[in-house]
C-alpha cells in the first residue's frame, strides 16, 4: 500500500552500494574485513569513563540547541589553537549528531530547488543523496588516480554553471585517502571567489594526516566567510557510535542550520557531548598513538599492494587505500565479490563511491597489522590464479 506513497525524490535514489555489499558479506564465514569505515579501536577508556560519570551525576537532560556551552567553548579554543581560525562559541559553533547530520543541515540550509552542488568524485556515499533529498542537483567533478585524486581547478571550472552554488570538499578523503595541500586548496579558493560559491568542507579525518600538515579550507585567506567547516569525533577519537560532530561558520548560516536542527533533532545527546568534552580536554595522547598505529598499517598495506602488483598511490590521510584493479580485467564489483567468495576478504567496490570509483576498490587499514598482512597474502593468492 505504502509503496506508491513514497516521495519521488526518495524513491529515485538507488539503494546504497555499500548496503548491498554488506548483505553479501553477512553470509560468509571467517572474513577478514577491510570494508569498514570506522576505527578498529574502542573509544579510549577515560572518555567512556567521563560519560559514565556524567550519567551518575544525572546529566540526562536536553542541552541548548547549539550544544553544551563548555563543549562549544572547547571546540572554539581547539580550532584556534590548531589552525588559527576564530569562531565565537556563542553563535558560530553548532554541535550535531555526527558530521552526517551537520552535512545534511548545511545542504538544507543552503540549497534551493535546482541549485547545483559540485561534488568531487569518487565521493563519500552520503553527499549526493543528501543533496537530492534537499531538492538540489548533485554535479560530479571527476578526480583521477594519476592526480592522486586531488581536485584540479580545470576539472572544477569545467562543471561550473550559473546554477552552481555549493562546492563540497572532503580532505583527507573517504574513499581515496587523498589530501590537498595549502597550495592545492588556494587554487580552488580562487575559483570559489570568482564564481561566488559556498564551500561545505567535511574534515572529519583532519587528525589522521600522515605527511605534512592538514590545512582547513576555512583557514585560507577570505574563506572563513564562504565556508561551513565540519568536523567531529568519530574518526580521530574512535567515537563513531557516539554520533557527535560539529559545524563552524558565520553566525547567519549556523543559525539557519540550527533552525532545522532544533526542530528535527533538538540537540545532540548530552552524554555524547560530555564524552566529546573529555576527548578534547584530555584525548590528545590517544589520538597521537592511534595515528602512529594507522601510519604503520598504511605503510604496510601500500608496500604489500605494490609487491602484489596493484597500482596504488600512497595516500597521505584518513585510513583508506584506493588501488586500481583495472589490470585484473574485472569490474570493481566482480573483483570485490570474487575476492570475498574465494578468499574471504571484504573490500568495498569503488563504484559504491560514484561512477568515478569504477576500476578501484576501497580497502580500510583500520585493521590490525596481522589482519592486514593475512588479507594481503590472501589477495596475492587470489590474483595469482
Amino acid at each position, binding site marked *: 500500500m505504502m509503496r506508491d506513497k513514497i516521495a519521488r525524490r526518495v524513491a529515485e535514489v538507488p539503494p*546504497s552500494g*555499500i548496503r548491498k*555489499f*554488506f548483505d553479501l*558479506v*553477512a553470509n560468509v564465514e571467517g*572474513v577478514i*574485513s577491510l*570494508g*569498514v*569505515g*570506522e576505527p*578498529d579501536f*574502542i573509544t579510549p577508556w577515560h572518555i567512556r569513563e567521563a560519560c559514565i560519570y556524567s550519567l551518575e551525576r544525572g546529566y540526562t537532560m536536553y542541552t541548548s540547541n547549539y550544544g553544551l556551552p563548555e563543549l562549544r567553548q572547547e571546540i572554539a579554543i581547539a580550532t584556534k589553537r590548531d589552525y588559527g581560525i576564530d569562531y565565537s562559541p556563542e553563535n558560530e559553533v553548532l554541535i550535531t549528531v555526527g558530521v552526517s547530520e551537520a552535512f545534511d543541515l548545511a545542504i538544507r540550509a543552503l540549497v534551493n530547488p535546482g541549485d547545483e552542488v559540485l561534488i568531487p568524485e569518487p565521493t*563519500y*556515499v*552520503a553527499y549526493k543523496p543528501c543533496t537530492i533529498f534537499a531538492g538540489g542537483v548533485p554535479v560530479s567533478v571527476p578526480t583521477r588516480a594519476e592526480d592522486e585524486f586531488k581536485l584540479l581547478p580545470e576539472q572544477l571550472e569545467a562543471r561550473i554553471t550559473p546554477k552552481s552554488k555549493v562546492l563540497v570538499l572532503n580532505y583527507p578523503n*573517504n574513499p581515496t585517502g587523498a589530501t590537498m595541500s595549502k597550495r592545492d586548496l588556494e587554487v580552488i579558493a580562487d575559483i570559489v571567489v570568482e564564481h561566488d560559491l559556498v564551500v561545505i568542507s567535511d574534515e572529519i579525518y583532519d587528525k589522521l594526516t600522515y605527511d605534512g600538515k592538514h590545512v582547513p579550507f576555512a583557514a585560507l585567506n577570505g574563506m572563513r566567510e564562504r565556508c561551513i567547516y565540519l568536523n567531529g569525533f568519530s574518526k580521530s577519537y574512535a567515537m563513531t557510535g557516539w554520533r557527535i560532530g560539529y559545524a563552524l561558520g558565520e553566525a547567519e548560516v549556523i543559525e539557519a542550520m540550527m533552525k532545522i536542527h532544533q526542530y528535527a533533532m533538538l540537540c545532540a545527546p548530552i552524554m555524547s557531548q560530555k564524552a566529546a568534552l573529555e576527548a578534547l580536554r584530555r584525548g590528545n595522547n590517544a589520538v597521537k598513538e592511534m595515528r*602512529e598505529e594507522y601510519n*604503520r*598499517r598504511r*605503510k*604496510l598495506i601500500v*608496500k*604489500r599492494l605494490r609487491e602484489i602488483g596493484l597500482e596504488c598511490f600512497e595516500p597521505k590521510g584518513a585510513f583508506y587505500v584506493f588501488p586500481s584493479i583495472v589490470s585484473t580485467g574485472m569490474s570493481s564489483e566482480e573483483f570485490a565479490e570474487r575476492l570475498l567468495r574465494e578468499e574471504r576478504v*571484504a573490500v*568495498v567496490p569503488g563504484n559504491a563511491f560514484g561512477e568515478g570509483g569504477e576500476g578501484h576498490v576501497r580497502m580500510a587499514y583500520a585493521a590490525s*597489522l*596481522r589482519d592486514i*598482512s593475512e588479507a594481503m597474502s590472501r589477495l596475492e593468492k587470489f590474483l595469482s590464479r
Partner: protein
Amino acid sequence: MDKKEEILKLLEGDARLGVAEVAKAVGLSEEEVAKVIAELEKSGVIRKYKTVINWEKLGKEKVAALIDVKITPEREHGYDAIAERIMRFPEVKNLYLVSGMYDLSVLVEGNTMKEVAAFVAEKLAPLPQVTSTTTHFILKKYKEDGDMLYDGEELRRLAVSP
C-alpha cells in the same frame, strides 16, 4: 619516535610478529630489522619473549600471595644482599623494594596454599634480616602485566560500513 622504539613497541604488543611484518610496519628492510632486534637482544634491552597465560581458565589454578616483608638492612649492603638471596627462590615471581610501612614486596607463587605458607614459614620468615612478614593471598586476578584477564563480550564492528 625512533625506529628502535617503534620496533620495541610493536614487539611489546605482540612478541610473535615476524621480522617481515615488523619491517613493513616501520619501513625498514628485513635485514635492518633483524639486526636491530639482535642488538637489542644482545644488549639486554629485550629480556625475553613471554606469553601471557590465564592459567585459571585451563583449570590449573595456582596460588599466589603478596608478602610484605620488613627487613633490617645490613651495613655496607643495605637491602641488596638480602634481596638477592630472596630472589633466587624460584617460588618468588616478583620482588620489589618499596617505600612505606615495609621494605620488600614479594610475590610468591605455588601450587597450593599450603605450599606458599610453607615457603613463608620455612624459607622467608626465618632469614635473620627479616623482622616480620604479612601474607596477602591473592583471591582474584583482574589485570596482570597490562592485560585484563577476563572475557568481555566480543565487540563486532559492522563488516562493511560507509
